[in-house]
């Protein structure tokens, strides 16, 4: 640390980047539709992801109606139910969460937080969105093709995914696989941008260890996604060939309805390996941006520096690396060698260490902080609670002996919804309430926001807490209806009705949020440039919302880390990253 200059009063001249470097839009179409501005692309990504997410929300209502009140909606037959499950899972995990965190928040926040004018390859960035949109449209087309979308479950396990009698085996599975491949191609284009921008686009003084944790989270998640998505890509191509050309990558010899099928020699387990080699990192691809964002929300709204910044960075990197060696914990019941199970259980439990470090650091950041119960803060607190909750049941399921009886029960459903459904969604909401003023120059309505939070938070518990219990009773997941079983008491059905009612209420609360988004666009309170009095660069732009190019003539120069809140002796309770040091505050 010899090159550190303490208390240098003279500000360093900013690196000026000529305006000519940027592509400037000349028409309405290039400004709002085929835009190369990362901020517009971010909004396009976010709106597309939220729209398709609404479809998945409606699907979850329909599933819950079937589980809580079987037969009430007569159009839900077993095939439809499986199609709803599949599409709900696939949309939520990939087309909503991944796209929103990386394509939405990544595009908006990386250039702004690093003091860059834009992503390094704006044209490729634009293509990324349009390929993503195409992927979404192909996915939606699945609802309209003959036979409907695939009903193979979001894991698309062969052989059943492409056998006759699985709903959507005609066209649905083809459309699904093509859509996934498009998504991966689009994501790779965007991901290259996010990574290279973090590596090359940082402004003067923005060292890696001065980056806000949001950028660290998105950066690490992008690297992981770039390395993990090829596994899904390879799996998708091979399954597509199995379906279309009759190859046997994954299809074993099968006798179906007394008839020998043309397949032979494929290995279904091979697909599971490929799928989960992608699927497990995917959990952290969603979680790491959430970890990063929530760190910034907590620090800003508790007016306190983040506790253990270095540990937070190391933990993010460690989680990213470890998440590549745990994939087979999704396959304990696939008949694999018990020695492998032991290895993967060990690595799975080791991940709990960096994760726990992060949780402790969030809690210690709150400790004796000046906590403002703003809506973003409420959602951040909601995240900590739900994430710890889901993480603890993860410790149950990570152990082979506990997992074997719980596998394929509603307990698993409750676990992953808590840890990678509710928890990241809490962060997404918190982040939208937090950054909406920067996007629009107006605040979201506070009262509606608090209503939205409390109904969502309490409602999520009302849905998923009982579900753990249902799972412990042994109720299997993926069942269209239970029928008569000796081991499930009739009171379980009452619980199911309760869960369904809670799910409908939580869903309705999201409509309040949507209303708030559009209503505040015009009627929200004007926010000014930095309503939360935050330190990071995106709040220091000369104008709000920031124009194309973000910074006017000069790029900001960074003099300090991102968490200078409540610094003793400072005039204000926050010091922006681009505020030059004065002799009083070394």
């Amino acid at each position: 640390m010899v090159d550190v200059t303490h208390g240098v009063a003279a500000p360093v001249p900013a690196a000026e980047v000529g305006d000519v470097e940027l592509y400037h839009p000349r028409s309405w179409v290039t400004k709002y539709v085929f835009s190369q501005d990362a901020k517009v692309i971010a909004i396009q990504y976010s709106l597309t992801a939220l729209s398709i997410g609404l479809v998945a929300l409606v699907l979850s209502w329909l599933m819950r109606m079937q589980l809580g009140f079987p037969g009430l909606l007569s159009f839900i037959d077993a095939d439809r139910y499986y199609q709803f499950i599949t599409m709900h899972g696939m949309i939520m995990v990939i087309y909503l969460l991944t796209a929103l965190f990386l394509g939405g928040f990544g595009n908006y926040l990386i250039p702004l937080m690093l003091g860059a004018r834009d992503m390094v390859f704006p044209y490729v960035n634009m293509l990324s969105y349009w390929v993503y949109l195409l992927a979404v449209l192909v996915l939606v087309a699945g609802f309209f093709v003959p036979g409907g979308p695939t009903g193979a479950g979001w894991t698309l396990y062969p052989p059943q995914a492409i056998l006759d009698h699985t709903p959507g085996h005609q066209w649905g599975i083809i459309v699904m696989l093509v859509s996934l491949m498009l998504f991966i191609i689009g994501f790779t284009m965007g991901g290259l941008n996010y990574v290279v921008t973090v590596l090359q686009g940082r402004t003067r003084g923005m060292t890696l260890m001065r980056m806000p944790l949001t950028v660290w989270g998105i950066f690490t998640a992008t690297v992981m996604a770039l390395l993990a998505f090829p596994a899904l890509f390879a799996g998708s191509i091979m399954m597509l060939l199995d379906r279309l050309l009759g190859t046997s990558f994954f299809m074993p010899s099968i006798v179906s309805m007394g008839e020998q099928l043309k397949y032979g020699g494929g290995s279904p387990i091979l697909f599971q390996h490929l799928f989960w080699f992608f699927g497990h990192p995917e959990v952290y691809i969603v979680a790491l941006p959430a970890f990063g964002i929530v760190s910034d929300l907590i620090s800003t709204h508790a007016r306190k520096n983040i506790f253990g910044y270095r540990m937070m960075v190391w933990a993010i990197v460690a989680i990213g690396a470890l998440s590549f060696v745990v994939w087979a914990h999704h396959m304990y019941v696939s008949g694999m060698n018990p020695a492998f199970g032991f290895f993967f259980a060990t690595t799975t439990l080791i991940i709990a260490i960096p994760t726990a470090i992060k949780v402790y650091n969030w809690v210690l950041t709150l400790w004796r902080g000046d906590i403002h119960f703003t809506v973003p803060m409420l959602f951040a607190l909601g995240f900590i609670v739900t994430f710890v909750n889901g993480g603890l049941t993860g410790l149950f399921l990570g152990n082979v002996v506990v997992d074997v009886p719980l596998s394929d029960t509603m307990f698993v459903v409750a676990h992953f919804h808590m840890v990678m459904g509710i928890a990241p969604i809490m962060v997404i909401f918190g982040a939208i309430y937090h950054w909406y003023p920067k996007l629009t120059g107006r605040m979201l309505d506070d009262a509606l926001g608090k209503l939205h939070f409390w109904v969502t938070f309490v409602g999520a518990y009302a849905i998923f807490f009982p579900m753990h219990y249902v799972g412990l009773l042994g109720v299997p997941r993926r069942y269209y209806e239970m029928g008569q079983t000796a081991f499930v008491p009739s009171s379980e059905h009452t619980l199911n009705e309760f869960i369904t009612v809670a799910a409908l209420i939580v869903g309705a609360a999201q409509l309040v949020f949507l209303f708030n988004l559009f209503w505040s666009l015009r009627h929200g309170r004007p926010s000014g440039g930095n309503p939360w009095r935050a330190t990071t660069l995106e709040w220091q732009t000369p104008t709000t919302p920031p124009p194309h190019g973000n910074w006017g003539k000069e790029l900001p120069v960074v003099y300090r880390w991102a968490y200078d809140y409540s610094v003793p002796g400072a005039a204000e309770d926050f010091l922006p990253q681009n505020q030059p040091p004065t002799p009083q505050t070394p």
Partner: protein
Amino acid sequence: MSAIVIFMALIAAIAFWWLSRQRLTAKPWLEVGVIGDDIGGGRPPTWPKAKIGLSVFLAVAGSLFALLVSAYSMRMAMADWRTLPVPAVLWLNTILLILASIALQTAVVAGRREDFGGVRSTLLVAYVSSLAFLAGQLLAWRQLVASGYFAAENPANAFFYLITAIHGLHVLGGLVALSRTTARVFDEPRTPLPQTIGELRLSVQLCAIYWHFLLLVWLILFSFLMHWANDFVSFCRAALS
């Protein structure tokens, strides 16, 4: 899945090597002022961004090929594996791809000497030999189909077609970039303006890097298709146990 695990370990080693040079042990809360480092310090970055972008892309493509090799070797390890005869034309194709790679490397060297006549001819050699490589791969397919080795017949055939097809598509994608580079070099006068020389050199260099990558991947895939690699793996296994 050992191939992909080894690949990931390699990526992790590179990542940690890079991170270890990024002052990750710094205490940013104690450091106020402008800190000098490569990018944040305002010095021009040592690597052009296109080169970093390409390297990241190679990591992605490398991951895809490592996964294919993993799947292939996993399937091979099962008892009922039946190999298919590898057409002799693959040897010729391998030589063609090596030739393309050498030609592009020569183009890079020529570009460094500002000998743009040399760049032109070597780019053309690389272009033609890459096209010939693709034609040779198609020929190999036709020979296999003619002798009745269809993709749907058994997994060994399916893997052969899949792996060669994905590699071929990557060559095809590279050819798009190579055509653009070649067209640009031919558009410029034989002694280009000083400001365009840098850009031309970079384009040629990026093509060369990509071709070396494709060659490396092909040699690994070829060794698997020729079953040298699994002989090697079983030799290692025997040596370990």
